[in-house]
């Protein structure tokens, strides 16, 4: 008789495996599409006529970012795009450090407009910028992120398709230094692959703060950013999905972002993201299992929600297994003391765990590794083994439930989460 815990574990594994298989099938389907997009971008770059380039405004909301804002602005100034078609708006959301003094040097720059306002949250700063936009396209860049020079010209060609309303970039980790940042580097590669697949499915549920570019009319028609549980970029994507506004992803447009360097920062950031997803998903629950919203409503939103619970459950089961094994070791130490001679040196396959769950976990890990290989190849152009992959496989998986359970707790008990 299978107990309830094992049954839930089987179901969780089936869902995870199904999702991985689904992603791989999607990858097989869109390989040609990816090649065609690369050619389209090449074509745009070669035949680019400045007059045909749409006008673009990039809004940079800043709050106490005196250390990174200059690098962010420098990266924008290095964008390979006609100067007269590109402008910038920097909005200081009530910084208390020297950020305003730092950005004031662009006051007289012809491409810049600078505003200072009382602190009201990131969405209010971006909205102030949006009110002053006159260009055809508009985007946002967080002041802890940096664009590569070719990023914009790898985004703009997608707008040749009149139905495309927003294009998201591929986000990478800026100069990873410690093991947590290396884990995030691998995780971001995975996200690049995932977003590209979601793009083909028409199921992107976030237009990230760093350098997602929109048609300006999106904001004129659907309204500006909202508070949205501190994840306004998620809410905007869900609002666009609800109104059938097409969002696509340009996997070649790279944006680098500064990532948390310690566990506390990482948990805080991810709790905010997960909390934002859960609460925005609740706000847009009408989209769930709604055929009219295609893969987004029928599959991606439900599975993203279920995966929060199944991840907590699966890691919980692994940890409880480890705890019971540790208790056995402790019992053994109590009984016969500490000795290295416990284990028999000879190998006997009989003692290998060949249970159904173990075999399925091995297959799931193998599929994960294969998708990671494809992700890194898509993100970096080639696969290179680095330590982040090992950290990601063995440490990240155990860390995820930390923020998933905290976000779940905060949602259930309606606790507010903080930005920093």
């Amino acid at each position, binding site marked *: 008789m299978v107990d309830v815990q094992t049954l839930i574990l089987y179901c969780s594994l*089936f869902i995870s495996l199904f999702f991985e*298989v689904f992603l791989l099938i999607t990858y097989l389907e869109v390989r040609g599409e990816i090649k065609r997009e690369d050619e389209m971008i090449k074509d745009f770059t070669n035949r680019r006529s400045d007059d045909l380039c749409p006008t673009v405004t990039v809004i940079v909301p800043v709050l106490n970012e005196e250390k990174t804002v200059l690098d962010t602005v420098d990266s924008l100034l290095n964008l390979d795009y006609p100067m007269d078609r590109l402008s910038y708006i920097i909005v200081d959301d009530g910084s208390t450090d020297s950020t305003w003094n730092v950005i004031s040097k662009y006051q007289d720059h012809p491409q810049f407009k600078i505003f200072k306002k009382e602190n009201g949250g990131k969405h209010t700063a971006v909205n102030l910028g949006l009110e002053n936009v006159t260009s055809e396209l508009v985007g946002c860049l967080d002041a802890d992120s940096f664009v590569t020079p070719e990023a914009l010209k790898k985004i703009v060609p997608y707008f040749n398709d009149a139905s495309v309303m927003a294009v998201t970039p591929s986000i990478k980790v800026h100069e990873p230094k410690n093991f947590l940042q290396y884990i995030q580097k691998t995780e971001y590669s995975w996200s690049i692959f995932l977003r590209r697949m979601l793009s083909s499915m028409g199921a992107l549920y976030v237009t990230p703060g760093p350098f997602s570019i929109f048609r300006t009319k999106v904001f004129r028609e659907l309204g500006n950013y909202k508070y949205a549980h501190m994840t306004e970029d998620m809410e905007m994507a869900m609002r666009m999905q609800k109104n059938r506004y097409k969002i696509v992803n340009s996997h070649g447009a790279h944006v680098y972002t500064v990532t948390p360097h310690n566990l506390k920062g990482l948990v805080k950031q991810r709790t905010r993201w997960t909390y934002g997803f859960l609460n925005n998903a609740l706000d847009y629950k009408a989209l769930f299992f709604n055929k009219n919203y*295609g893969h987004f409503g029928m599959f991606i939103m439900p599975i993203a929600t279920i995966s929060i619970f199944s991840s907590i459950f699966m890691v919980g089961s692994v940890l409880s297994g480890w705890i019971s094994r540790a208790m*056995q070791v402790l019992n053994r130490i109590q009984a016969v003391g500490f000795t290295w*001679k416990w284990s028999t040196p000879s190998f006997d396959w009989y*003692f290998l765990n*060949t249970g*159904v769950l173990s*075999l*399925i976990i091995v297959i799931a890990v193998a599929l994960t590794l294969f998708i990671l290989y494809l992700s890194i190849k898509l993100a970096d152009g080639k696969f290179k083994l680095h330590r982040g992959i090992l950290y990601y496989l063995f440490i990240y998986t155990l860390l995820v439930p930390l923020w998933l359970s905290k976000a779940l707790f905060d949602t259930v008990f309606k606790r507010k989460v903080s930005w920093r």
Partner: protein
Amino acid sequence: MVDSRKYVFAFFITALIFGTAIYASNKLTDKKIQDVRDIEARVAADILSSETQFALLAETSCRDIGPGFLSKELGPLGEKLSYADNSKGFNLEDVDSLKRSYFLLEIKDYLLMKRLTEKCNIKPTFILYFYSTKDKCEDCEKMGYVLTALRNKYPDLRVYSFDYDYDLGAIQTLTSIYKIKPQLPALIVNGEPYYGFKTVDELETKVPALKLLKTATSTNATTTLKR
């Protein structure tokens, strides 16, 4: 518009992976069960051989009994059965039937060992160990580690372990012969019952044959070193 064929295809592949994993796992478990059955068959043959050899003792002397007189596979067999008993995935009926045969083989081996010690006047080097699987018995688990450590230390020591609550007439007869109370873990050493957890040191003191084995081991080690 959702392409439902893609979902069906993905579902089919996932189900195929699950089905393959279930099939492979069942095959491997069957192979493990067969392994245990083969070992049991070999132990049974070993015991039969020893009994025959023993029957011939009337015509020969105790000196003719070599080191391989008793089956060496009883210990590893017990370990494999214990692993099967504690793992998910094994068919409970299969494991139960193998356990039943194992306990009977242990009793036969024990009787042979007992007759051998009486006939050849040698110090007994065996322990009868009763544990419980019915209630949570932490001391039984710890006692198991101690006995495994002792068996590793003294390869000639024979430990016969029995599930006190197992529904087998032979085990019930054994417990009534030694009047073993249900205070587990329980050990029978030289006919004397000992209840509760005992450390390696305590057992080495209480079992005279172990002392002898201990001395023999250290003498051997010293001789080897001198050489």
